[in-house]
């Protein structure tokens, strides 16, 4: 990089009186800023890589075919796995996404396209910001009283509801922000063609903002995927397979929690393996969605 002639240097050659000083200072500032932002990037990356590396180191040894296909064995018996917890997590997260994503995106659309500056919009915005800060265990209690007490038993459904409630505020606010970034000229172009407002919102505005909206959805998803507290008294956990939404269901975070606080070495190892599987599941889900979205992009589109 230092070998190439920058425009500043080229100018300095032809105009050698005053500009060199200025350009030198600018170049130093430029290099310092670049160095600062690169080191910031490493600071962000370091903990992530450290965690991931440590997880692989501790967990990869216990991942086996059995671990991925079998249910837990009783205490003392070797082997067994977390297959039912992996399945349970997938079901609960799928349910949470099914409930949370439409509500979150819908509320975001309301805020950006209809409720701008309105009283109701203000309330929705405020409530969603507060909801974002509510501790996850409190959300668990809410789902407990809303679903578990009504049904009189723990269930995957209750777990899904708890996680959905946690997803909504993040999705709502990012959807709103992303829709607001779409220039009003784009909306006017659609109105000008005689496209009704609802259709403009769905097919033009939301479509234009989609990459950002999906980022918000992925953030919300990744955030709740590892939540344990709200599942403790909703999904509850289960030692066996369960495919019924109305029954207590195993989930990876629950299983990891239970195994990690147990006194058995074998279980500790399995907890590490479970954590690794959980992270890999999140990475795979997020990458798959990213890939699917970028597939549809056009040459030259932003």
């Amino acid at each position, binding site marked *: 990089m230092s070998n190439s002639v920058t425009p500043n240097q080229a100018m300095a050659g032809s105009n050698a009186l005053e500009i060199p000083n200025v350009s030198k200072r600018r170049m130093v500032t430029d290099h310092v800023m670049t160095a600062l932002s690169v080191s910031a990037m490493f600071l962000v990356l370091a903990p992530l890589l450290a965690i991931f590396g440590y997880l692989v180191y501790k967990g990869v040894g216990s991942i086996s075919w059995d671990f991925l296909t079998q249910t837990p064995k009783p205490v003392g018996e070797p082997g067994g796995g977390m297959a039912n917890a992996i399945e349970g997590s997938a079901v609960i997260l799928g349910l949470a996404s099914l409930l949370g994503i439409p509500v979150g995106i819908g509320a975001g659309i309301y805020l950006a396209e209809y409720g701008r500056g309105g009283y109701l919009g203000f309330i929705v915005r405020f409530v969603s910001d507060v909801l974002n800060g509510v501790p996850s265990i409190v959300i668990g209690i809410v789902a407990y009283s809303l679903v578990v007490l009504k049904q009189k038993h723990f269930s995957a459904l209750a777990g899904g509801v708890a996680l959905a409630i946690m997803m909504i505020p993040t999705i709502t606010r990012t959807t709103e922000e992303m829709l607001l970034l779409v*220039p009003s*000229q*784009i909306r006017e172009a659609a109105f*000008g*063609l005689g*496209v009704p407002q609802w259709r*403009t919102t769905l097919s033009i505005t939301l479509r234009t903002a*989609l990459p950002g909206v999906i980022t918000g959805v992925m953030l919300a998803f990744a955030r709740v995927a590892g939540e344990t507290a709200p599942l403790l008294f909703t999904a509850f956990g289960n030692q066996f397979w369960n495919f019924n939404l109305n029954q207590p269901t195993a989930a990876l975070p629950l299983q990891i929690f239970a195994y990690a606080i147990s006194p058995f070495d074998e279980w500790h190892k399995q907890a590490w393996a479970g954590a690794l599987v959980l992270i890999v599941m999140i990475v795979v889900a997020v990458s798959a969605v990213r890939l699917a979205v970028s597939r549809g992009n056009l*040459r030259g*589109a932003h």
Partner: protein
Amino acid sequence: MGVSIQVKNLNAWFGKKQALFDITMTAAANHCTALIGPSGCGKSTFVRCINRMHETIPDAKATGSVKIGEVDAYNGTSAPQLRRRVGMVFQKPNPFPTMSVYDNVAAGLKLNRFRSNAKQMDEIVERSLKNAALWDEVKDDLKKKSGASLSGGQQQRLCIARALAVEPEVVLMDEPCSALDPISTGKIEDLIFQLKQNYTILIVTHNMQQAARVAEYTGFFLLGKLIEFEKTTKIFTTPSDKRTEDYITGRFG
């Protein structure tokens, strides 16, 4: 075929501030009518009242009557229905950024649930792009290239093609060339000449040579009022109002 635009006693407000005062004029069918006037005099507001875009602004209001041919714009028609008859081209080119060139042109039809098979749609897209003098420049990459990746002048012609695809009766253009270089401007002016055969055109422009080149009739706006509306040749040679004369001779504005 184009139809005339008849405006009677049009008043428009932004909140409490009145932006248009009692405008009455008729843009003749299959002709081009230009609107000139200093910045902020209400030209855009006027144009946006014709396709009811004005009412999309919170607190904005308009009274009076606007007729597109035989259709009363404010009575018995919904705004979307009206806007399908009235194409609009904006000051800044605004293609849909996530759509291909093809989809941009087809957007108006697809989003309005116009039923057609692929072949019909191909024909409409090709015809619209040809009418907008853009076909030769984009035909090889129609479905793969994003509308946003075209040059500014191409984007503006794409927007014209998009407006033409829904077969409007009149086309409103609000300073369509103000973001373009002279060559692209020339292309769009040529285009306006051809479009006159099939459409009625109302164009806002700050460029008086442009008004003189493309329009048969010209209206001069000042502070929300239509000061003078005349044959273009007359308004630029022997304007009857002193204020018009001052403006076109560059004495103010």
